[in-house]
């Protein structure tokens, strides 16, 4: 292996890995938990309640089946934007709002 030059040694000392704050780590963990919980619980509940109205069947089913993880990710992104707009709001309400935004967005994209 080639010998490390002085500059490389300096680079190694200067560009050290940076630890993220615990707050960031906690926030991301929470977001990931929201995603997974949403997928197995809220998403299923919301899907069932939406399917009671036949007018929603087409786009909703298409979104959930075809979208999979990506659709859920969109929901979370949307919910996060909503929470930023209303910090004091109920997180579940924000997630629900996110689901509705995504459904609406998908309908628009599908042109239905």
């Amino acid at each position: 292996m080639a010998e490390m030059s002085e500059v490389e040694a300096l680079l190694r000392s200067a560009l050290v890995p940076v630890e993220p704050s615990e707050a960031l780590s906690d926030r991301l963990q929470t977001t990931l938990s929201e995603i997974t919980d949403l997928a197995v619980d809220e998403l299923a509940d919301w899907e069932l309640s939406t399917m009671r109205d036949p007018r929603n069947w087409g786009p909703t089913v298409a979104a959930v089946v075809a979208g999979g993880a990506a659709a859920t990710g969109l929901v979370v992104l949307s919910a996060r934007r909503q929470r930023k707009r209303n910090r004091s709001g109920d997180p579940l309400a924000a997630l629900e709002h996110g689901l509705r935004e995504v459904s609406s967005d998908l309908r628009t994209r599908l042109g239905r």
Partner: protein
Amino acid sequence: MGDDADKRRLDAEFTDLYRAHLRDVYSYSYYRVGNHHDAEDLTEQTFLQAYRHFERAQRESDGRPLRPWLIRIAHNLAANYYRDRSRRPQTQLEDAAVVSAPHDTEDLVEGRQELKDVLAGVQALPDDRREALIMRFALGMDNREIARALDRSEGATKVLIHRAIKQLEQGLKEEETSNG
């Protein structure tokens, strides 16, 4: 039921990816944007984007590590960050090495100045050279990984890093000469 099981498996694998590479993504973001606040934003957005495309990335990776893919997402988001807000990296990087180094002797104070000069030199490099050095030294990525993250060949990446180091070395020498 199969979909649920697949979703759970994907989520578990994504969580593993997140745990393994949170520090990498954060370090890369930090050295790109130069402050902790924006680095946190960039890291968060990177993982949310990654989650959206995780299934496909995993399918297309053929078992190769996904770290270069993650860093590529951060790289693209950082480019948008500057484009959208007409910002450039902060010139005074609050570098982690300097902040965390003990400073109880004069030698160490001199050493800290030397590290600051190196960081300033890195910040002054062209974007692709700077990024390659961040990936190599802050993240410990090898040429193959950096090549994948920057969408270049391994040969081109090796040349890029070599030139980056040479340019930095030259800049530091000139700085030293001008300071007497």
